[in-house]
Every structure is written in C-alpha cells, then in structure tokens.
C-alpha cells in the first residue's frame, strides 16, 4: 500500500489518468465505428435482400430480363462447383507447399524464395490473377469456362492456405517430430501420420478460411467463368456463379434482377459467415 502511494505520487498522476481515459475512449469509439459499419451493411443487406428470398431462388434458374420470378439455382450450383474444384486444387497444393516450408526446408534458401513468392501472390490484386488466367487458359482453350474460374480462384486460395497451414505446422513442438524420427520411422511417414494428424484442426481451418475468402471473389471470374443464363454442371462451359450474376444484375435497370442480386448477396454473406464460424469452432476444439 505504502509503496504504491509512493510510486503514483507526484504531479503527473492526473495527467496520466487523463491520457489513460482518452486512450480507452478512442479505442472504444473505434470499436463502435467498426461494429456500426458492419451493422449498417447487414441492415442494408437484409432490408433489400429479404424480400427476394424464396424457395424458387434454389429451384429456378436466372430469368431473362423483365420476366418476373426466376431464381439463382444455376448460379448457386455454379458457385459450388467452381469453388469446389478451386479448393480441390488449392488445398493439396497449399498443404504440400506449407509442409515443404516447415518440414523439409533444406538449407533454407529455396524455402525463403517460395515464401517470398507466396507473399507476393498473397497481396496480388485478384483482378491481376483473373487477367493472367484469362491469358493462359481462356485464350488457349478458346472459350470461357467454369474450370478457368476454378483455376483463377485456386491461385488466390493457394497462398492463403500456405500461409495459414505453415503457421499451424510451425507451432507443433519439435519434440514430437524428434520422438517419431527417433523410433526409426521415415521422415515422410512421420509427416503424414503424425505431423498432419496433429495439425489436422488447424489445416481444416486454413482450408475453410480460404474457401470463405474465394466465395465472394468477382474480378477473377469475370475474366474466366463469365456467366451462363442456363443451368450447367459442365465445368468446361461458361458457368453462372453468384458474384458475377450479382455484379450484372445489381447494375441492371430491372427491379426483379436487382432483387435477385440482393438475395444472392445474402446467400454469399451467410455462407461466408457460416464457414468462418465453423472454422473458428474447428480451431478451438483442437
């Protein structure tokens, strides 16, 4: 008691209190601002999107202009297929790269180079990735396709998976690695059977977060998957998908299309929210 009085005595006591108070207040305001913006977005989304929500959204395809009704079935399925293929490419590639960085860095030069390129790719604007995929895939194949969209999205997802999975793998105690190697078990088996297993929760989180991130990507798909007014499950054809349909419909003069765009926005928001929540739960339980 005595000591604390001595320390806090002096002329600066009230000044420090005020600084503390101002700082806390600023932090609080910033938090309120952040939450407020989010709330405003959600409010607009719900107000404009809810009227468009109905069962036909999932059963009917996108309607021609100025025709009432219709839905987003082709775009929903398209998004699922495009995202699914993208993650089927990005997850294994990303995990293998992260594994190489953490488990087999060698003398570290190659690892440093890979890490550098990964960081560059991570911060590359998605429109660049779309343009690049357009040049080497759409132009080569001669037509837009869902697959090209998947490849573009995979390029965006890979560096995210690498970054998150690398962090998770690096967190594992080296002692577990050493103990397994000391049993005379080959290095690659140690990696697959023990390291990946121990890091499974974190790796799933990495995949879910990357999936959430690419679910709403629009720019790369404009150059690659384009869109399609008809229902198709063939990834070699142009494919409808939620972001591009939203982009087209929201800017259109037709009220029905605008409503569908907002309904699509709700669908995307809900799925991203859902993925993030599941990812969080996964990370906690592990």
């Amino acid at each position, binding site marked *: 008691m005595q000591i604390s009085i001595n320390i806090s005595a002096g002329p600066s006591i009230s000044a420090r209190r005020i600084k503390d108070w101002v700082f806390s207040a600023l932090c609080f305001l910033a938090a309120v601002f952040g939450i407020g913006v989010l709330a405003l977005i959600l409010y607009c989304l719900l107000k404009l999107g809810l009227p468009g929500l109905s069962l036909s959204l999932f059963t009917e395809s996108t309607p021609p202009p100025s025709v009432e009704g219709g839905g987003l079935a082709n775009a929903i399925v398209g998004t699922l297929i495009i995202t699914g293929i993208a993650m089927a490419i990005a997850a294994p590639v990303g995990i293998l790269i992260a594994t190489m960085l953490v488990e087999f860095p060698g003398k570290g030069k190659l690892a440093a180079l890979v890490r550098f390129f990964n960081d560059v790719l991570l911060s590359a604007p998605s429109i660049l990735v779309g343009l690049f995929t357009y040049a080497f895939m759409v132009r080569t194949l001669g037509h837009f396709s869902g697959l090209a969209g998947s490849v573009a999205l995979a390029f965006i997802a890979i560096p995210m998976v690498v970054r998150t999975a690398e962090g998770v793998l690096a967190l594992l105690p080296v*002692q577990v690695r050493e103990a397994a190697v000391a049993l*005379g078990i080959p290095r690659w*088996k140690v990696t697959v059977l023990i390291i990946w297993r*121990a890091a499974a929760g974190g790796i799933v989180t990495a995949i879910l977060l990357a999936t959430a991130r690419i679910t709403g990507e629009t720019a790369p798909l404009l150059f690659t998957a384009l869109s399609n007014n008809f229902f198709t499950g063939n990834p070699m054809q142009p494919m409808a998908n939620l972001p591009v349909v939203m982009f087209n419909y929201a800017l259109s003069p037709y009220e029905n299309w605008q409503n569908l765009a907002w309904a699509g926005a709700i669908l995307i928001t809900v799925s991203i929210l859902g993925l993030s929540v599941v990812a969080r739960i996964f990370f906690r339980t592990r």
Partner: protein
Amino acid sequence: MANSSHAAKQDHKAEAAPHKAAVLELKKLCFFYGTQQSLFDVNLTFHRGQVTALMGPSGCGKSTLIRSINRIYELYPNQRAAGEVLFHGANVLEPGIDVNDLRLKIGMVFQKPTPFPMTIFENVAFGLKRHYKMTPAEIEERVEWALTKSALWSEVKDKLHKAGTALSGGQQQRLCIARTVALKPEVLLLDEPTSALDPLSTVKIEELVRELRQDFTIILVSHNVNQARRISDETVFMEAGRVVEVRKTSELFGSPKDQRTKIFIESF
C-alpha cells in the same frame, strides 16, 4: 523377426554375463553446431546389461553426446558429428548406414513427454506397425508387454483407447518409454527422463530403469547427482564437451579422482 533376434540376444547375454560385452564404443567423437564445437574427442564404452549415467553441469554436452549416437541431429542441416560411434563394431556415422534401422535398435526417450496425437494403444503400436509385420493379436500382446514393462499397464488397461495426451505428465513419460521399449531395441538412450516429473513419478521411472537394465544397454543423462548414484552402474562425468572421469558409480561417488568431479558431487 523381432522375436528371434530378441531370443538370440538373450542367449548371447547369458554367455557374456561375467565380463559384460561392449555394445557401443565412441572413439574420438567430436560434435559441431555450425562452427561451434560442443564435443571434443570423446572416448567411451557402453556395456550390455548396464546403466551408464552421463552427468555434468548444464551445457556440458550430455544431450549432444546421446543425440549423436542415433544420428537424430541430422534433422538439422548445420549439425555435424565426426569421429566414430561403433555399434557392434560398425561405425554408425558412416554415410551408408540405414538410419531407420539404427534408430530401431537404439531407442531414445526425451526430457519432455511427447505422446503422439492418438490413443494410448496406438501410441505404443505405432512404431511396431511401421517396423514389423505382426498380426493384430501379436501387436496387442506386444503393447501389453511394453506397457507392463513400463509400469503403466495397470493404470491404463481400461482406457487403452483414450487419447495419450489425456494422461498425466508422469504417465505420458512412461507411455513414451513403453513406445520405445515395444520395439525391443538393444540400447535405450534416456535424456533426463524425469526432469519434468514429480517425485512420485520419478521414483517409478527410476525403478523402471533398474528393471529394464536386464534387457537393455541403457545410457541415462541426468544432471541430478543423486539419481545417477541411485540407478547407474557406471558414471561418466563431463565438463565443457570433454569426459573428465569414467568409473563404476560406487567408486566415483566414493572417491572421485578428479577435483572437478569432486566439486560437482559435493555441490549437491
């Protein structure tokens, strides 16, 4: 295969019992972390059926020494050993050696318990499944044998399919010992296996080491003088990367020859 070699080993021991056979021999062993040298011309012999304690102040190179025996240091590209580590007369530091086979014969238990992310049973069966072609019944039998040897069976026999990480620290350490013992290695390297444990678990593991001595060649790192005195047959005292004194434990503690050994022992 494992069973036959084990039987052969025991026969061999029976005839070699009077003068204990040298299993491991270090000749002019040097060790480098990058350019920094941590072991200097270490010459040592380890005998079958004995516990040899490595003792010395922190940083003197005890862990480094046993880590060069199973070549675990090779996980790190800048670490290097020179000299000879003769295992039954063959230098294991030679490039042509199958390190996985070497590590099967020379098992190692670390300071911190490191259960794998799987059940208790799987933890012990893990190495067995990778090294031997055994039927499920044989595996079960061997797992029970190893857990019994490691004085853990009675505590876990009803929860073999619970996670290994759910055990207490002392139990986890005995699980790690069981995991290594299950492979029936010839040599056991123990790096301060009790330093993270409470006194009761320590006693259990010390009893275990004394018990296991019959079947294995054991090298135990300990910076606890009393532990070395309690459970070892021979004691090596090291300082600054060099061996200072090697004697039968009772002699070394009774009348240390070297002044440095004397000071270290008396400081406890």
